[in-house]
């Protein structure tokens, strides 16, 4: 079946339902595409044998009338989710040979709903990065090419997951978003990605970067695909104390396309200096589409927006410096022997972690140090609280917020910023919602002058992923974006 790869997740499910194809056939098509697109380096570990076994089992279940939400759908799993029996590297040398003996809650849920695992996708090391270039397993590229022919970053940290969906080497993928690691790669790769409300999806079994920010989510071709997959992933998990015990609504049913009378906020602070005209234009286009559909566009102000990045770059490294202390060479992962215990720690961690991870561990260690704690970490926590309150205030006036996802289109891998601060600026539009724990989605809405995808971001109220998906579906229909 030559067009199997062109099906959306929703289409694939109905084709499987109608017996137009089997999960094995669909999976074989994706395995072939993984082969064909291997130069993109979207996968760290490919698991075709596991995929075929799971696909066979899925076909058997379907024949027996036992059909899950993701029955027979081949997916890629960001290599930050622990998968039982399949090595999980977190993009790091230090976990190169780590094979978990347990399965993360999110992948457990996906597989129990019938999803088929194609492999583990590439990512920035420990999800720290915005270009997938901090991965120990090599750069990953976006399948999108501009006229110059140079390879583009898929974004990060979930670069492999975004690249795979765009390149059709997975029908959908999981991601995690700490400061924009789903929304930014989705924008760069011309696909749709959603980060739900903090606490919606369990973090149990997801290698931690910054615990109070990390949130699993997913990538798909369409808004509806996001809705289907998120449905299978979300839900309360007693094993994660920060997961929220709250019913998960039927997301797909919330996509009605009706946004008449809805109020959409446009935060003026997101018009940053030096933002390209084409991004500004795309944003305006998005407002027009929503207005045409009957929504009311409301100018709003989020004055603390420019404090979000510095706040994020204190809180996230602080938590990371502590979360990554467990990688010490004692019990699992890389061990580099040393003269004594301290020497072994220094050698193991010195060789096991890459530069960006070390930088963030050092920043985090510094901001938590005696004498600096109040000036940095405690102040950042207070600002974070104010940022949340600012959003909640605004949400008394509006139902959702529309912004660009990124201040630019994907940069080339060769010309990627070498200055960390410039790199961090990639996340300027995505970080505020991460600090506030709000749901956010990025969908492709147009092309840059170079022909590269540009994304729009929809942010919602806490636990209103359905509203976000619905607003996004209106933009999606209006944009008519041409996928690869």
């Amino acid at each position, binding site marked *: 079946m030559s067009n199997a790869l062109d099906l959306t997740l929703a289409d694939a499910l109905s084709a499987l339902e109608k017996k137009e194809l089997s999960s094995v056939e669909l999976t074989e098509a994706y395995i072939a595409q993984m082969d064909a697109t291997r130069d993109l380096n979207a996968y760290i570990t490919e698991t075709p044998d596991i995929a075929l076994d799971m696909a066979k089992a899925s076909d058997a279940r379907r024949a027996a009338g036992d059909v899950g939400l993701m029955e027979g759908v081949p997916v890629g799993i960001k290599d930050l*989710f*622990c998968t039982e029996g399949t090595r*999980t590297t*977190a993009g790091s040398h230090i*976990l190169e040979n*780590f094979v*978990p*003996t*347990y399965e*993360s809650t999110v992948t457990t849920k996906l597989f129990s709903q019938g999803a088929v695992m194609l492999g583990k996708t590439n990512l920035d090391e420990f999800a720290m990065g915005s270009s997938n270039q901090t991965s120990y397993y090599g750069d990953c590229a976006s399948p999108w090419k501009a006229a110059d022919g140079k390879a583009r970053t898929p974004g990060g940290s979930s670069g492999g997951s975004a690249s795979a969906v765009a390149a059709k080497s997975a029908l959908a993928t999981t991601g995690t978003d700490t400061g924009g690691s789903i929304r930014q790669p989705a924008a760069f790769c011309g696909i749709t990605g959603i980060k739900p409300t903090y606490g919606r999806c369990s*973090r*149990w*079994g*997801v*290698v*931690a970067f*910054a*615990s*109070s920010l990390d949130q699993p989510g997913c990538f798909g071709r369409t808004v509806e695909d996001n809705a289907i997959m998120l449905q299978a992933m979300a839900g309360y998990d*007693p*094993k*994660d*104390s*920060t997961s929220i015990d709250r019913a998960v609504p039927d997301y797909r049913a919330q996509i009605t396309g009706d946004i008449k009378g809805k109020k959409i906020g446009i935060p003026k602070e997101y018009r940053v200096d030096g933002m390209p005209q084409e991004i500004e234009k795309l944003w305006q286009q998005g407002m027009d589409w929503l207005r045409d559909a009957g929504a009311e566009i409301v100018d709003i102000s989020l004055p603390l927006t420019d404090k979000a990045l510095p706040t994020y770059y204190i809180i996230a490294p*602080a*938590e990371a*410096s*502590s979360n*990554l*202390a*467990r990688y*010490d060479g*004692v*019990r*699992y992962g890389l061990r580099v022997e040393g003269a004594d*215990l*301290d020497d072994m*720690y220094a050698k193991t961690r010195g060789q096991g972690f890459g530069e960006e991870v070390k930088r963030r561990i050092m920043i985090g*260690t510094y901001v*938590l*140090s*005696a004498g600096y*704690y109040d000036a940095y*970490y405690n102040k950042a926590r207070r600002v974070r609280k104010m940022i949340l309150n600012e959003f909640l205030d605004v949400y008394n006036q509006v139902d959702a917020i529309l912004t660009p996802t990124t201040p630019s289109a994907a940069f080339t891998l060769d010309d990627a910023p070498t200055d960390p601060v410039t790199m961090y600026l990639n996340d300027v539009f995505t970080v505020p919602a991460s600090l506030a724990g709000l749901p956010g989605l990025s969908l492709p809405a147009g092309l840059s002058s170079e022909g590269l995808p540009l994304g729009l971001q929809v942010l919602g109220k806490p636990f209103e992923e359905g509203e976000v998906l619905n607003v996004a579906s209106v933009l999606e229909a209006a944009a008519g974006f041409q996928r690869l």
Partner: protein
Amino acid sequence: MTYTIKGNTGEWEVVIGLEVHAQVISNSKLFSGSATDFGAEPNSQVSFVDSAQPGMLPVVNKECLRQAIRTGLGLNAEINRYSVFDRKNYFYADLPQGYQISQLYHPIVGEGQIEIDLEDGSTRTIGIERLHLEQDAGKSIHDLDPKRSFIDLNRCGVALMEIVSRPDLRSPEEAGAYLRKLRTIFRYLGTCDGNMEEGSMRADVNVSVRKPGDEFGTRTETKNVNSIRFVMQAIESEALRQVKLVESGGEVQQETRLWDAGKGHTRPMRSKEFAHDYRYFPCPDLLPVNLPESFVDAIKSDMPELPDDKKKRFINDYGLPAYDAGVLVAERETAAFYEQVAEAAGNAKLAANWTMGDFFGALNKADIALADSPISARQLGGLIKLIADDTISGRIAKDVFEIMWETGKDAETIVEEKGLKQITDTDEIEGIIDQIIADNPAQVEKVKVNEKLLGWFVGQTMKATGGKANPGVVNKLLKDKLGL
């Protein structure tokens, strides 16, 4: 009677504060489901959380919260309805996470106080600063192999209560009494077994010295002292060291020291043995603990009678001296045993004398625990009842007690079988006395001069009756007949 150290420059007062680490009695660890049994095979009680596998998350064990609150109530302390778990960051091979989860800024229990019982029967009130919950570390074993160290993680993650006293203690004796009182309270509540030799109760000892009336001196902290005797010795030797140091022109350094039990003194820790900056911050994997009032109330309503209340009751209801009451309530089992004895005996004071005297003496001599006593509380009470109602004399009772100890028979049975019932028939005793007076005219003359010789007549009478004559009746009759 104040405890002081006599130096060359005069008397020095010793100021002591104790930080006690008490292992919580619970079936599972503070943040994982692993068992907590003492003495299990190494590394047989270790979960993915305890060994800090990637992506694992802590979930607080409610039973440990309950136990901490019970203990807090037992210390007459404030229960904080809001508390927070913090991470204390440091690297060590037996600390898999690279941090210990503890409570620095918001402990679960605030200020309280307990009464300690001193040798002279007096009591003193000692302030409690706080009680917080934290994880224990694992155990490093360095002496099994010349080159390698071994790690046992069974203890890792077990819940500890750290109880910090005010610097209210002024002598080794008071420190010992404080530790004994804490242990008594733990055991009454069933919140810690108090076994210092198994490490389930350990103390850090803060000591400083000052001239009476002066400000507090600089203190040192001696870590991990594991018996009451060692705590008392450590205080004495450390206080002496400080006095000598100060008097010879030196200055006490605020430092961490170790107790060397073999040499009987403290020594400074090498600087590498402790970390300087723990970089505490709130654990982002756990939400703050908000205790509902009903949760605390349920624990309050389920509290057993505490040792101080029991002591007061023993003094008021049973008419016991404060010292006796203190001894009897020191262990809950002993107090319960005594109350059964008193009930069966119908005479609380006599019951106290016998329980603390002959009975404890016999247990000590045979080196057996109360639970293994060959004489039950009901049986001991039965024996005392026979004394109280003049069936047997105290003298005979001692013989009966010995037979009971050997045979386990009831006192009544023994008295019956051996015909040991006391002769209270005045006529019968009178006949015997008349005979003795008639047979010993010389002694009769002497006793009239020296009344002390009455004892000789009593002895002769008892001998003639096989010890069964009621001593009171014998005395009275002898005095009458000898005209004393």
